């Protein structure tokens, strides 16, 4: 039993509704309490035709192109169908009518009103009225006997009466219903129904059962009930064949029985349990349309009992007519073979033609009416009337005597599989539907083209957002153009072919410098333009002949190529052309689209070779185009915006779901443009529609993008989303640079900075959460510089293992960079981006620049670092005022070195500071002991010792260990082109570093204070002491120094103390400087590692170092 219940859709405002099909079943007609009658092509019809019939419509009926409605001004009106023009008032009551219904041939209507009266009126002549009095309460519903003898009515007085139409007498009356005083209070509206065809049975919904009464005898034949029904039934409806009976209840269940077998073949529940108040069978197919009291419209498809069609026919055919029907069956089968899709029609037609003898026997009103729709009304009517007079043979022909419909419904090809989706029609991006009188032909980032097509005027209005491109223009639309595109160079218009005229492409090339601004091209006969687009210097159109024709913007015909399928839409930008076409047939509401992306310029290559286009389920394409930066994007009807991810193998990535921004269910955003920088989705909010009206002029809104990453409520998810969004939205920069377009270098830098910042934050977050593996994974995404930062961060937050892992990775990365020649190329690229102006051969310079960007990041890291320090993990360290001092010292040391190294080009103001602290001190032995000591402690892992002087050990030891060997090479790679000086500097650094460490160590082991005057002095004079007493050991040197220091005059001592303070201050300022955006942070990091390595390596080159140091410091002094 494959019955598909489609989701309900909004039809009318809340309140009572009614539904019926038109005679051929081509459309559904509903009416509701908003006073509108809507004509729906199908359930998915977004633009139903609305006819306003009054303030409120209570009931509607449709037959023979006449639409009868009962409205709140107490009248029953006629409108023509489908035009909807008012055609007079049929009758009036003193209260509103509750139900109107046609008789089977559509010549009469019956209306029951709240003023207790029932009237039967001839449609053709409203003066011929018959009034039925007798009900003591408002009349609920009515039903005509198909043979036009009787009329059944249900009323709030609790009775169901059967009237004889001819003399308006009450034939019988059953007290079946609950009494009430008004329709609103009635438990059930009790829509009853005669069995179509013979009218043998009258079905009345009574509480939870459907009572079937026999004609003439008026005794209850049987009750149809089902356990599924828990609430009173509101309405019954017979299938046109009279075999099935559907009933809807007040709690939204719909049940279908096979009346013959009394078997329930279908149970369905309303998705929201609203009361079903309208129920109608499709005249030919097995569909039931239903409406509820909340104004929703639903459709139930493929209602069947799953039996084989022929069995059913046999079972329904009565003996007398068996032989006739055998022949008939064959006919139908033939008909099916010829035209299986429209079997009912085919069958009926054939029947008409060759079964004349069958006709009178079968001749039935209902049947004739059906034929009417296929053929002509007049003949059908005459026949019907004839049949009416001839045929009074009674009950015999009942169900079997009405074979056309059961057959038509059962002889449908029995196919349960997925149904093919109708292919979506070609469209222009940014246009509203062509049938509108006032519509947008295109709205893009250049301007707006509007089209007016009403009685007075058929014109096109072109308007530019930026009036400096061109002024607004107004064109007469004599050719009836339906398609348009607009670029900064030209306007492209196209029309479809008419009977006389071929399809034309019309270009207004307003930026042309000659006098001829326009050209037109005629398509070959029978070839219709379906979509058009403009690029830079070219125009293209796709035609119904599956061809894409490319023109230059001046009108020269260029490339022409075939499409694999019917085109859906096209868009152009620069040299790029994207074409979306039908790759095949989609099923179950899905479209099956393919996409081609090509470059038309000099390169002439195809980038996407007809790949499948990913669309949200059951959606279709609504917009396709390029971002302002030239990345292809498209939007589907579910509001998902997808963008080409050039950085990941030209995949499509959803970047925004506009439905998330909508307030109402039927609100949409109509996309007009996409910008990647700044990240903007420009669209027009449309309330209750898919597209905006031209007036009032809609305002553009801006939506932000959001990648559908998981857990974006958490900090991690958020940052991940941001990171990847930034990556995706900056792919265009690479693309542009690769294709030789100019682009803003800053954008790239900013993007890199932003991304690295996010990575660093993520890194810090994972660090805090003790997710070290994740940290490494994150670091893998980072650039070299940031990895160094990360290493620093890791080491500072006491994650030795992590730091080690990271530095290994850094080395690996570095060596990769060095070895792979392709990488080199990339590097070249990178350099080119970074310093387009500078020579690019020197690594140091780009690096310095790079660092500028990373500066803030470091700040972020710094804060993160501080946060980390606040974690309970390191509270012991906190109170120690020295810890900061040491770290800063450690940072500053390399800094000073960096400055030296970067001083190649410019005078460095910090140089003095650095060199001031660079006195010649043979600190080797101290350092040795220190480093050895630290190594030992770190290896032994003794907590106590660590606590003693953890700050010196921790940051230093792990790195050298892991990096020693490779780091040297790494450094060489980085400075292959720098002069000897750099090596010198390196040595200087090497010299520098141990000295600093010494100081730090001294500080550590001594009184844990910043350098005192004495220390300064000692540093300065140590050499002297040593030369004087070469055999002194360290302690003795100090002792000697002490005594010498005391011997100095107080002024001198003061001077030293001052100096010491100044040094401290300098330290501090250095510390601060780190936070300022100076250009050297990066090298700081590089060199810092370098230093730390060298500090271990430096035992041997020490003597040399010292000398260079001296030389350098002297040099520096001179400079300053």
């Amino acid at each position, binding site marked *: 039993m494959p019955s598909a219940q489609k989701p309900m859709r909004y039809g009318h405002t809340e309140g009572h509704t009614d539904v019926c099909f038109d005679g051929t079943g081509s459309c559904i007609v509903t009416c509701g309490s908003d006073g509108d009658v809507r004509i729906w092509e199908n359930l998915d019809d977004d633009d139903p035709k609305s006819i306003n019939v009054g303030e409120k419509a209570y009931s509607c009926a449709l037959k023979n192109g006449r639409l009868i409605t009962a409205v709140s001004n107490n009248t029953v009106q006629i409108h023509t169908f489908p035009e909807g023009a008012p055609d007079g008032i049929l009758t009036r009551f003193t209260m509103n009518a509750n139900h109107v219904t046609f008789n089977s041939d559509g010549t009469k209507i019956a209306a029951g009103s709240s003023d207790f009266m029932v009237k039967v009126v001839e449609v053709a002549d409203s003066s011929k009225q018959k009034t039925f009095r007798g009900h003591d309460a408002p009349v609920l519903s009515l039903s005509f006997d198909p043979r036009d003898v009787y009329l059944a009515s249900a009323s709030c007085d609790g009775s169901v009466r059967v009237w004889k139409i001819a003399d308006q007498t009450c034939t019988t009356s059953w007290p079946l219903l609950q009494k009430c005083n008004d329709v609103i209070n009635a438990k059930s509206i009790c829509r009853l129904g005669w069995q179509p065809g013979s009218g043998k049975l009258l079905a009345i919904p009574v509480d939870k059962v459907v009572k079937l009464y026999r004609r003439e005898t008026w005794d209850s034949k049987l009750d149809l009930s089902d356990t599924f029904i828990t609430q009173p039934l509101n309405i019954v409806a017979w299938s046109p064949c009279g075999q099935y009976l559907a009933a809807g209840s007040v709690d939204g269940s719909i049940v279908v029985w096979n009346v013959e077998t009394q078997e329930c073949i279908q149970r369905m529940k309303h998705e929201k349990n609203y009361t079903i108040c309208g129920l109608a069978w499709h005249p030919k197919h097995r569909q039931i349309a239903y409406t509820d009291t909340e104004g929703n419209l639903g459709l139930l498809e493929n209602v069947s009992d799953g039996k084989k069609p022929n069995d059913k026919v046999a079972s329904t055919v009565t003996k007398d007519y068996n032989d006739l029907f055998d022949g008939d069956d064959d006919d139908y089968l033939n008909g099916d073979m010829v035209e299986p899709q429209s079997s009912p029609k085919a069958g009926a037609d054939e029947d008409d033609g060759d079964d004349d003898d069958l006709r009178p026997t079968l001749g039935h009103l209902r049947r004739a009416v059906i034929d009417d729709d296929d053929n002509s009304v007049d003949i059908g009517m005459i026949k019907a009337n004839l049949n009416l007079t001839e045929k009074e043979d009674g009950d015999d022909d009942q169900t079997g005597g009405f074979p056309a419909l059961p057959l038509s419904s059962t002889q449908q090809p029995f196919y349960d599989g997925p149904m093919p989706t109708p292919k979506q029609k070609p469209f222009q991006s940014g246009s509203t539907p062509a049938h509108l009188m006032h519509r947008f032909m295109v709205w893009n*980032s250049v*301007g707006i083209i509007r089209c007016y097509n009403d009685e007075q005027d058929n014109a096109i209005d072109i308007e*530019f*957002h*930026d*009036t400096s491109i061109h002024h607004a223009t107004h064109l007469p639309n004599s050719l009836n153009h339906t398609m348009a595109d607009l670029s900064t160079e030209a306007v492209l218009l196209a029309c479809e072919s008419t009977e006389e005229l071929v399809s034309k492409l019309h270009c207004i090339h307003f930026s042309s410098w000659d006098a001829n601004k326009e050209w037109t091209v005629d398509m070959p006969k029978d070839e219709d333009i379906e979509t058009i687009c403009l690029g830079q210097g070219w125009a293209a159109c796709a035609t119904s002949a599956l061809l894409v024709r490319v023109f230059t913007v001046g009108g020269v015909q260029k490339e022409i190529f075939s499409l694999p399928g019917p085109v859906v839409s096209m868009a152009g930008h620069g040299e790029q052309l994207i074409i979306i076409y039908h790759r095949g047939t989609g099923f179950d509401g899905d479209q099956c689209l393919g996409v081609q992306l090509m470059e038309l310029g000099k390169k002439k290559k195809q980038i996407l070779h007809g790949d499948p286009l990913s669309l949200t389920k059951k959606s279709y394409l609504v917009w396709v185009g390029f971002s302002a930066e030239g990345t292809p994007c498209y939007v589907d009807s579910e509001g998902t915006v997808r963008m080409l991810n050039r950085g990941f193998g030209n995949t499509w990535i959803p970047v925004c779901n506009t439905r998330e921004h909508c307030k109402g269910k039927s609100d949409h955003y109509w996309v007009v443009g996409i910008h990647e920088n700044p990240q903007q989705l*420009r669209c027009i909010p449309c309330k209750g529609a898919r597209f905006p009206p031209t*007036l*009032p*002029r809609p*305002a*553009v*809104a*801006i939506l932000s993008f959001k990648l559908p990453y998981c857990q974006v409520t958490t900090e991690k998810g958020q940052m991940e989303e941001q990171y990847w969004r930034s990556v995706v939205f900056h792919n265009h920069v690479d693309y542009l640079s690769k294709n030789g377009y100019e682009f803003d270098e800053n954008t790239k830098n900013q993007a890199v900075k932003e991304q690295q910042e996010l990575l660093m934050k993520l890194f810090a977050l994972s660090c805090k959460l003790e997710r070290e593996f994740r940290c490494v994974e994150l670091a893998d995404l980072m650039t070299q510089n940031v990895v160094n930062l990360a290493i620093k961060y890791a080491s500072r937050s006491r994650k030795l293992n992590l730091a080690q892992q990271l530095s290994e990775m850094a080395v690996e990365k570095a060596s990769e960079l060095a070895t792979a020649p392709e990488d080199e190329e990339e590097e070249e690229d990178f350099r080119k981006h970074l310093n387009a102006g500078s020579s690019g051969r020197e690594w140091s310079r780009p690096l310095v620049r790079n660092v500028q960007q990373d500066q803030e990041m470091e700040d972020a890291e710094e804060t993160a670092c501080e946060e980390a320090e606040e974690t309970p993990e390191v509270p012991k360290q906190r109170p120690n005022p020295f810890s900061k001092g040491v770290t800063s010292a450690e940072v500053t040391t390399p800094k000073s070195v960096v400055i030296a190294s970067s001083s190649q080009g410019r005078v460095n103001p910090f140089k003095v500071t650095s060199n001031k602290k660079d006195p010649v001190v043979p600190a080797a032995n101290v350092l040795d002991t220190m480093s050895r000591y630290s190594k030992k402690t770190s290896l032994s892992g003794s907590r106590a010792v660590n606590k003693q002087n953890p700050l010196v050990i921790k940051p230093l030891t792990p790195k050298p260990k892991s990096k020693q060997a490779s780091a040297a090479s790494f450094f060489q790679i980085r400075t292959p082109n720098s002069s000897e000086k750099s090596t010198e500097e390196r040595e200087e650094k090497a010299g520098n570093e141990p000295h600093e460490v010494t100081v730090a160590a001294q500080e550590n082991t001594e009184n844990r204070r910043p350098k005192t005057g004495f220390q300064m002095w000692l540093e300065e004079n140590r050499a002297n002491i040593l030369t004087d007493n070469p055999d002194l050991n360290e302690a003795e040197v100090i002792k000697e120094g002490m005594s010498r220091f005391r011997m100095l005059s107080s002024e001198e001592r003061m001077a030293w103390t001052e100096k010491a303070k100044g040094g401290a201050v300098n330290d501090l300022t250095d510390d601060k400087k780190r936070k300022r955006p100076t250009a050297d942070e990066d090298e700081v990091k590089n060199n810092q590692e370098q230093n730390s390595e060298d500090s271990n390596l430096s035992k041997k080159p020490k003597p040399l170092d010292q000398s260079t140091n001296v030389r350098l410091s002297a040099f520096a002094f001179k400079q300053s």
Partner: protein
Amino acid sequence: ILQGDLGPFNPGLPVEVPVWLAINLKQRQKCRLIPPEWMDVAKLEEIREQERKEDTFTPMPSPYYMELTKLLLNYASDNIPKADEIRTLVKDTWDTRVAKLRLSADSFVRQQEAHAKLDNLTLMEINTTGTFLTQALDHMYKLRTNLQPGESSHSQDF
């Protein structure tokens, strides 16, 4: 006095700017104005009904609703759908409110209250009655203070 950083201005994209700039640009025909959200017939009708129904002042959609309406409708009526209707609606609302204001001022004086509180009044409305009312109250105070000794002296004299 009028200054500030604004923009970026992109053709076709709405930007929020101060009213003075908006009007200026509009006068030079450099822009289209997007009326504030409340400047909509349905919303204003609702506000008017509410204002008529309540005895007290109802909150207005903008503290400068009258000024804005006046300015926008004078200079940019072509950008505002149903400008005339809006004008009438706002005028109606204004009239209702001013009438209420007068009424309350009247009852305030009549009942010789010492203080009264009026919520949701806009600046413009306060200014329409403010100066007059305070001066009038001053005068009345003088009259009353004169009246009392006058009465006593009156009784003394006669």
